């Protein structure tokens, strides 16, 4: 599209190289720290690549021997999986009927804006009553309590995503089936939901990532291995007691792996989601 000017071409390649370095250097360093020995990491001048690759932290963090850093890490990993999994399932379950109703019923579409508006609320506006409420129910420091709280974020978010997903399925298909005498539950079960399956899967993955990322509520509402999530465990590690930076980096690599893999696999869905959002703007 531009002139094929050699100076311009060189400029494009140099900029691309610079951009790649900016993106990759911090990530590469996280990985290098995770496989470097403590001696390499505290050397001056710093060793940018370890003399010997040290995978001991990966073994340590993924071991389940009791009362080790590994046991704590694995417990928080499982807690994150449980909380994110339960919150995602619950959010999708309440969002599917609501999103379909909003998509097919113009008279109630305004309610979607109210739902989206709550998404802008700062979590601090809800945190104190949620804390007191969970304490009252005995759900502080519990994966169930935290999953319940995560619905504040995931329920509006998945409803919004699913609504635009249902919008893209022509309602004429549903009207045709209705004329043929199908009942609403049959239409939804046999027609609309199977057609919406890819959108539902994408929404669920995004919701899962959002819950996997969450830190504020997890910090407030969990206190030990029974419910602490990965983000809180990593913040604890980064916050002090541990002097082995390689161990902190390893925990970071392990926590980043699932979302990064999902992100790479889903780039097409992510980018098309961004585009449709852009068109609406």
């Amino acid at each position, binding site marked *: *599209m531009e002139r094929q000017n050699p100076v311009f071409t060189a400029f*494009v390649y140099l900029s691309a190289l610079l*951009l*790649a370095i900016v*993106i*990759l250097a*911090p*990530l590469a*360093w*996280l990985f290098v720290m995770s496989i470097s020995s403590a001696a390499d990491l505290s050397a001056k*001048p*710093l060793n940018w690549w370890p003399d010997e690759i040290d995978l001991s932290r990966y073994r340590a963090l993924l071991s389940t021997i009791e009362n080790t850093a590994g046991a704590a890490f694995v417990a928080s990993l499982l807690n994150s999986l449980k909380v994110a999994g339960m919150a995602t399932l*619950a959010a999708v*379950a*309440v*969002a599917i*009927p609501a999103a*379909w*109703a909003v998509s097919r*019923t113009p*008279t109630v579409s305004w*309610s979607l804006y109210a*739902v989206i508006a709550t998404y*802008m*609320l*700062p*979590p*601090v*506006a*809800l*945190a*104190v*009553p949620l*804390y007191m*409420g969970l304490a009252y129910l005995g759900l502080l420091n519990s994966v169930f309590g935290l999953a319940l709280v995560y619905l*504040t974020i995931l*329920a*509006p978010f998945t*409803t919004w995503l699913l609504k635009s997903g249902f919008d893209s399925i022509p309602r004429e298909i549903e009207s045709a089936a209705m004329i043929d005498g199908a009942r*609403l539950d049959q239409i939804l079960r046999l027609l609309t939901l199977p057609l919406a399956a890819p959108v539902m899967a994408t929404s669920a993955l995004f919701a899962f990532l959002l819950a*996997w*990322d969450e*830190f504020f509520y997890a910090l407030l509402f969990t206190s030990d291995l029974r419910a602490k999530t*990965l*983000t809180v465990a990593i*913040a604890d590690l980064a916050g002090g007691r541990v002097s082995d*930076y390689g161990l902190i*980096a390893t*925990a*970071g690599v392990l926590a*980043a792996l699932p979302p990064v893999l999902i*992100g*790479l696999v889903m*780039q097409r869905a*992510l*980018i098309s989601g*961004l585009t449709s*959002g*852009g068109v609406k*703007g």
Partner: protein
Amino acid sequence: MPGTWITTRAWLLMLPLLVVMIAVIGWPLVDTVRLSFTDAKLVGTAGGFVGLDNYAKMLGGSNFQRALITTTWFAVVSVAAEMVLGVLAALLLNQQFRGRTALRALMILPWALPTVVNATLWRLIYNPEYGALNAALTQLGLLDSYRSWLGEPGSALIALIVADCWKNFPLVALIALAALQAVPRDITAAALVDGAGPFNRFRYVIMPYLAGPLLVALVLRTIEAFKVFDIIWVMTRGGPANSTRTLSILVYQEAFSFQRAGSGASLALIVTLLVTILAIAYAALLRRAAGAS
């Protein structure tokens, strides 16, 4: 089928969502309002009615004013930098060159990295004794002695902004890139034939396509930046000398560290009000932009 039945059916289908939203959002918000007029403690005392005392105390205090300035500074600088870097990266990714697809895929990585991991990573990079930034700058001869980037009030906020930008500008770039790809090729070609320079082509040919999506990104990023908590808590906890204490950190300290639920709630509502004003202002801006294009 009569319209009223369809509307009733819609509300019935929305019922589970509404119940959940009232339980975890509606009720807590209302209760925050109630608490903000009391001197309740987080645990134990239910507290008595104190009228607007909490609001007066919070709004008049220097902590709030300083946190408001810190938050605004953080939001304005980081969002502005993300917009500029994002558009520049998108313009680059919109060119034809080998490795373009791979580079675009790389842009997903900072977005996908959990915020807490990003904060931890940059905390390690900024480490005063063994950090990569100190090592790199010293080895390149740009720095005489190691500095405590997060430990000095003068540099901590900027260091945080850099870490936040690195994570968020790629998302802006992807949004802008999607918009750029909607610009019809013949229009840019025509502008080129008409002798429009690069700046004029950007301003008059490309910008109209970018404006809408960028405005959406600007809205979302500004609101996010105004609510910022995670990255600051993990990297500095609001320090040193409260130089990075944003509004969300201040609410956390008031309500949870000092367990003053009442005044914490009033502060949280002030923050909510500010975010709402921002959102409404942006919505008006968006509507005007949509009307113009």
